[in-house]
């Protein structure tokens, strides 16, 4: 089996690569590439993302044909994809970081700034927070409710259809931190930086 981590200049993906390789060992082949054919023929795709919503969307669009290939992979072929952090946020129709930017539109909703309640809460939301699992999700299999995950973000994904939400976390408000819609999975937290519990999520995705 091939799992492809999409390398589209979205910032630092070393930790994502290291964690997937750690979990995959020799069982699964981990590719890190922006090669369209390789992405197309892989079994699963990981879409990381750091920096701003706009910079990530721009970077995706900078690689000619990449968005089309991802659409085909996810929407037509219904193959599993995991978005991490801004990778998840880009599932939305629209994001409001820097400037209004169109997302991939795979899960209806928007990405807006976390309400810091007039400075009462620090942003970015950085550190270990507990997840409230609100529905069964394949990637959360074996993860205890209230497990700690590592977060670092200032924007949040607000999906229209609340049924896609598989976990939330409490900060200044209730933040969506894990989604599942058919073959589309996403985490706002960083499983690659969430120690053993995070690696378990990566294992769950690889084992789908």
């Amino acid at each position, binding site marked *: 089996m091939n799992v492809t981590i999409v390398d589209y200049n979205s*910032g*630092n993906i*070393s*930790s994502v690569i*290291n*964690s997937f*390789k*750690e979990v995959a060992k020799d069982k699964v082949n981990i590719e890190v590439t922006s090669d369209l054919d390789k992405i197309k023929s892989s079994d699963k795709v990981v879409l990381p993302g*750091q*920096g*701003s919503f706009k*910079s990530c969307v721009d970077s995706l669009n900078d690689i000619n044909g990449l968005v089309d290939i991802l659409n085909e992979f996810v929407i037509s072929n219904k193959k599993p994809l995991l978005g991490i952090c801004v990778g998840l946020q880009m599932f939305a129709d629209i994001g409001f970081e820097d400037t209004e930017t169109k997302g991939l539109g795979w899960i209806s909703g928007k990405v807006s700034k976390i309400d*810091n309640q007039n*400075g009462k809460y*620090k*942003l*970015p*939301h*950085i*550190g*270990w*927070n*507990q997840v409230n699992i609100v529905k069964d999700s394949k990637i959360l299999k074996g993860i205890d409710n209230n497990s*700690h995950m*590592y*977060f*670092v*973000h*200032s924007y949040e994904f607000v999906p229209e259809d609340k049924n896609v939400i598989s976990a939330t976390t*409490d*900060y200044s408000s209730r933040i969506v931190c894990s989604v599942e819609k058919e073959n589309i999975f996403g985490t706002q937290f960083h499983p*690659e*930086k*969430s*120690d*053993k519990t*995070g*690696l378990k999520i990566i294992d769950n995705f690889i084992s789908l």
Partner: protein
Amino acid sequence: MLKNRIIPCLDVKNGRVVKGINFVDLKDAGDPVEQAKIYSDGGADEICFLDITASNENRDTIYEVVEKTSKKCFVPLTVGGGVRSVEDINKLLNCGADKVSINTAAVQNPEVVIESSKKFGSQCIVVAIDAKKNGDKWEIFTHGGRNNSGMDANDFAKQMEDSGAGELLVTSMDRDGTQVGYDIGLMSKISANVNIPVIASGGVGNLDHLVDGIKLGKASAVLAASIFHYGKYSVKEAKEYLDSKGIPVRI
């Protein structure tokens, strides 16, 4: 609920761990990769490497340390010391650092913070502020505490937030290596002045100091080196102690 973080820091020189008293009199004590792994297995919320003599000496050894550590530790890794340019940051991130802390370069050339936070995102840019008390204010020091910039720490903290820093690592130069506790006045002042998280550093000698850093200093995270490094306390003991004092920690 978001937990307060405990961050053990390893001072690294030529690829080996050291910890000095007030940044001099270095003692060699261990392999940073193994040490980091012990910390992360013990529940450290993040790991920090500080390449202490990097401003003056050949620093390629740190890249190898970071690369090896990031393949073994799956908690966030912050690396600082001698980071001068966007290219240095890029290189550390590519080696597997999750965040890079910038000290001297942020003071001398704030453009580095603006540019790097735009390029890599604020989440990986930590500005390290080394401050020393002078009268009723704190002044910024650079070059590992050797040079006084004369700049006001509080103003600089705000400027760095505006420039795109994701976090501030605030070290009291008066307290560093003394084990008498954080400079609470400095921490609380800066924390109240900015909306980004503050990591308190410099002066931890016992677990009550960690409690004070969070409760009184209003820090989001507490960094300590020698109390963990010389085995006075384990990270687990520190967390249990904080928990017993009503501070939310990841256990």
